[in-house]
């Protein structure tokens, strides 16, 4: 007779590049992002788990509301990690579709295409980025308040929709401050990130449920930072070591919650 097994726990990660990008890309196959570390750590506790990482580079929470039904509803995860907010805080005024077009990872090679990218698109983007950098240094960070408020409203809507599917644990990871490189390119990004983190705290307080929590990224990374490790050397994305620390801490939080709400014996 076959041995009875437990159905795997389901963890879904949605968000932007902090969940799928490593500083720096192209490293060893063991350079895991934190969702895979979560999977590894939960498996090490003997708990079968399936972690889906559907984060997409430059995705904003407004897109998260559009695609959540397809990604979340039918699969009905036990835990949802919403890693949004970084992209919203990066640019002062440059639009997201232009950023995606310039830094597209889907472009085909070709004489005309390569020429367009090299001699038209990239110089234009650089000019715009320099203009934005200058404006960012002059404009007070308070002009970002409206965007932060909309971010909070959208995130709250998304969280409430997700909770509707049998109240999964929803984790909102805090965004760490920018690295040196991004702080130079985007002078007020630090303040904008603080506003995004405040907006997430506001969402948690508005929803007011034990299953919707801020994930304290800073606490998870503190031991690493104490050793002098630069957690975001490219300016905004975690090193493999930082991903590892976040993944371990998140796995502990998920395991503790699941021991109570999704027991192995259930």
């Amino acid at each position, binding site marked *: 007779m076959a041995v009875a097994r437990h159905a795997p726990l389901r963890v879904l990660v949605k968000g932007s590049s902090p*969940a799928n990008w490593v500083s720096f890309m192209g490293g060893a196959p063991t350079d895991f992002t934190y969702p895979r570390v979560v999977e590894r750590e939960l498996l090490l506790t003997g708990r079968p788990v399936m972690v889906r990482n559907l984060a997409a580079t430059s995705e904003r929470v407004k897109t998260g509301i559009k695609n959540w039904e397809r990604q979340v509803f039918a699969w009905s995860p036990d835990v949802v990690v919403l890693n949004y907010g970084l992209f919203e805080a990066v640019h002062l005024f440059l639009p997201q579709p232009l950023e995606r077009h310039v830094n597209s990872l889907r472009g085909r090679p070709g004489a005309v295409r390569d020429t367009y990218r090299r001699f038209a698109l990239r110089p234009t983007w650089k000019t715009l980025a320099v203009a934005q950098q200058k404006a960012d240094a002059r404009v007070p960070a308070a002009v970002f308040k409206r965007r932060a408020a909309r971010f909070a409203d959208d995130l709250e809507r998304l969280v409430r929709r997700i909770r509707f599917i049998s109240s999964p644990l929803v984790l909102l990871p805090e965004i760490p401050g920018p690295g040196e490189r991004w702080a130079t390119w985007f002078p007020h990004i630090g303040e904008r990130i603080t506003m995004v983190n405040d907006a997430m705290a506001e969402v948690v307080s508005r929803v007011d449920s034990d299953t919707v929590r801020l994930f304290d990224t800073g606490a998870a990374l503190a031991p690493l930072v104490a050793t002098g490790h630069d957690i975001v050397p490219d300016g905004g994305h975690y090193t493999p070591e930082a991903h590892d620390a976040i993944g371990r801490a998140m796995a502990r939080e998920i395991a503790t919650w699941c021991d109570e709400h999704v027991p192995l014996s259930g």
Partner: protein
Amino acid sequence: MSEPLPLPLRVLVKGASTVHTVSWMGGPRRDFAYPRATEAQLYAAGVPAEVRCTAMASQRVKTALKNWEVETFSWSPDVVVLNYGHFETVHFLLPQRLERHAHSMADRPGPIRTPYRIVLRKFWKLLARIQQQLDRRLPSTMLRNRPRRVENDLVRLIERIQMIGSPLVLVMELTPPGAPFRNWFPGMGERMEVMNQALREVVRRTDKPNVRFFETNTVLAPLMQGDEEVNPDGGHYTPEAHRAIAERLAEEILEFARQEGLTKAELPDDPAHRITAVPD
């Protein structure tokens, strides 16, 4: 506390119908295409693995560049198998969109749609016969830009994939067409030779130890004795051929995973105990 569980290997297989179609379709449940047979093979070796197959009939490498980010980036597979170039060698002139439309698997029935499809099929056959005649009379590899573009697109795709933790990338060699395809597409064999050279060139240009050419035809050689064909429908492998490919793929994947510290397991030596999930 429960026993620790191993982290499953992640394998992504991208490509055209070569990957997921079996000669012939509609067989028993154990007629696995090679991605699923690879998964079974890895499990049989004690290595849990998730093998995702996102292949689509008639998919070209230019489409792979469009969809790779969604399929590959966040999931971050340990191994990516790229089985492209086949569709690009099939037709001499007919466009891919018309082929997809004529052979659509998403068509609905209806009083107008059904007669339209009957007419469409006749029109398609007429065009295919014209193409067949032209393919006999004109130099079959005259569209030299096509393999060159496949090569450039594939190099770009592999460069992008390498960003994500340097996975093992296997570029699959294409198998010469079987009798039905040789009849319908007389120059396909020659086009495929050129395409296989382009695929080898892709690996040479990429020049990384973890980007390798998978010698499909060497693996299938024992199944091609005498008049035996591994693709009796002309372009797709038999279940036995899929299984032979899967056995070799699993060996190569396991060797890489061991080397990179992703697993400590080994394949069982006894071939009789390999694919336990697919009994003979």
